């Protein structure tokens, strides 16, 4: 599991790659934690790009839930984008699709949460 971080205006874009399982979930949680800090209102928002995540167990879902709750507590926004079909199905089983906002692509996610960030993204 690896996380690459980019900042686009007021959005922190975290590109996650690999497996999020029992073994890697703690590292995933630690990688997210510093970005949740200060995630509030329009100041800072989080977008997790899950395009390169090919495996996620309940341990990974739990980390996402903790992160989303952390953001919500400080009136922040965290959204997810580009889930692989299997991960999308796993979200449905756990009804995570109802509690976490997901978008088909990173661009769609950015467009929904920050016009400035999507403009920067389009510029490349």
């Amino acid at each position, binding site marked *: 599991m690896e996380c690459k971080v980019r900042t686009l205006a007021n959005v922190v874009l975290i590109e996650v790659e690999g497996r999020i399982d029992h073994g890697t979930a703690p590292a995933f949680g630690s990688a997210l934690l510093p970005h949740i800090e200060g995630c509030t209102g329009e100041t800072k928002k989080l977008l997790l790009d899950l395009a390169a995540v090919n495996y996620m*167990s309940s341990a990974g879902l739990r980390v996402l839930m903790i992160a989303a709750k952390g953001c919500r507590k400080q009136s922040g926004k965290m959204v997810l984008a580009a889930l692989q079909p*299997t991960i999308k199905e796993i979200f449905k089983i756990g009804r995570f699709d109802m509690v976490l906002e997901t978008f088909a692509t990173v661009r769609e996610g950015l467009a929904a949460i920050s016009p400035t960030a999507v403009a920067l993204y389009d510029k490349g």
Partner: protein
Amino acid sequence: MAERMMSDRITAPTIDAVERCVRFAAAQAREAGFSLARVREIELVVEEVVANICRYSYGDRSGSVELSCERLDDASLTLEFIDYGRPFDILALPAPDLAVDLDQRDLGGVGVPMFRALVDHATYRREDLRNILRVIVHAAPRLRSDPTAR
């Protein structure tokens, strides 16, 4: 690597049981010719079962988990999980409250519906102070997947 040499059975201490059992079952499913999508689903099944055994059956005490794998035919595998902890039947766990409001949503409990969705048949029995969970998985994936996924 060592577990492959033990043919169709592995005994793993709880400290790394999840990782070793997942690796073992994945190797068995690949060997049986299952698709990558179904191998990943079986990995999820094994991860959820073994993590629950470590947490609930052993209550985070140390112990061991045995996993045996038997090929029934070209299209199915039987996975048998044995542990020596307190009575624990994953099949009897109540369905978690998957509330759709984030604030009310509990952090745990997702592993069990995931397990139920991914297996084709499962039975539990308590015998000679052992928990024995027998699971049958067919080759056909239960979830929709991307055939080009890697």
